[in-house]
């Protein structure tokens, strides 16, 4: 009954059964990906998150295709009156540039982390978090503007009712990710600054960076498929 496994030195070792076996198997020294486990786990989390956002965007595609009401024109809905004229989509464009800039500062923070310049890492991560916070601030402004104009998840004065539900669901979930990311960044920046990673190494900065770049990546798709389409 008892199965056997070859140990690294070539001798056969009996595998344990029952719960002992479950614990032994999951905690055994086996490795598929030659990266730190935290990084592999972050990638797998991001993969699952990809599926969540894809479900939202696919759902949005389906309701937009199937409605017979005219879809509100995002270019007009998200126009902002600046200097006496309506500029289409300007706030969304600024938000896009802010998020890209935050990705740039984050990439540099990762670099300084491996160079073990922890003050620079902390400063760059705080700058990244500030970019993220300003992004969320603009999103709050955008939401309040649309709510004031009568956009609701179940109806809106511009056209197809599905516009509101798609908009609040997709941008809301993305905004939640940015907000969580800001907290995550500030926490890690604080610990970096305190010198917590001097011995363990600065992989955590790269892992945090993966999450942050993913938030930027999702925005690329939302920007193209929701705002520009």
């Amino acid at each position, binding site marked *: 009954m008892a199965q056997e496994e070859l140990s690294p030195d070539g001798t056969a070792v009996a595998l344990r059964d029952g719960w002992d076996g479950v614990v032994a198997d999951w905690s055994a020294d086996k490795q*598929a*990906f*030659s*990266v*730190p486990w935290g990084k*592999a786990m972050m*990638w*797998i989390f*991001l*993969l699952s998150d*990809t*599926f969540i956002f*894809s*479900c939202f965007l*696919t*759902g949005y*595609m*389906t*309701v*937009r*295709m*199937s*409605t*017979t009401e005219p879809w509100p024109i995002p*270019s007009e809905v998200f126009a902002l009156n600046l200097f006496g004229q309506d500029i*289409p*989509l300007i706030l969304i*464009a600024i938000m*896009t*540039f802010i998020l*890209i*800039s935050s*990705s*740039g500062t*984050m*990439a*540099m923070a*990762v*670099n300084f*982390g*491996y*160079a073990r310049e922890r003050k620079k890492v902390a400063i760059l991560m705080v700058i990244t978090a500030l970019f993220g916070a300003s992004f969320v601030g603009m999103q709050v402004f955008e939401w309040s503007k649309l709510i004031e104009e009568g956009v609701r998840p179940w109806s809106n004065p511009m056209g197809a009712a599905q516009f509101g539900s798609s908009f609040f669901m997709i941008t809301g979930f993305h905004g939640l990710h940015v907000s969580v990311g800001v907290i995550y960044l500030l926490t890690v920046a604080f610990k970096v600054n305190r010198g917590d990673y001097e011995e363990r*190494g*600065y*992989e955590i900065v*790269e892992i945090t*960076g*993966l999450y942050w*770049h*993913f938030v*930027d*990546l999702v925005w*690329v*798709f939302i*920007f*193209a*498929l929701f*705002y*520009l*389409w």
Partner: protein
Amino acid sequence: MSTETGQVHPISLYLKIWGLLFILSACSYAVDYFDFQGYLRWFLIITFMWLKAGLIVSIFMHMAWERMALIYAILLPPMFLMVLVGMMAIEGGYTTLTRILFFGPGSAPIVH
């Protein structure tokens, strides 16, 4: 290159990608600003979107330097989402068709 301690690349590379992403974003915004319509609009939006996504994943997220085992484990599963998108596109088209047929102008009145 990829080492056991982590991904180390020159800052200048990140700055170049940063600049490229800015240009690509400006291009996608220009598509809307100059109000391109029809297939040209779709083509440009989708092209810029995939270029930006590719740059972020491969350079900023270091996928270009990872081992193939990790690349395939992460990038292959999302490809199957295209099946979902395809099925839902068919479903969406069908729903529109039935809505026009039964609720659109000229549709037969429902008699009880």
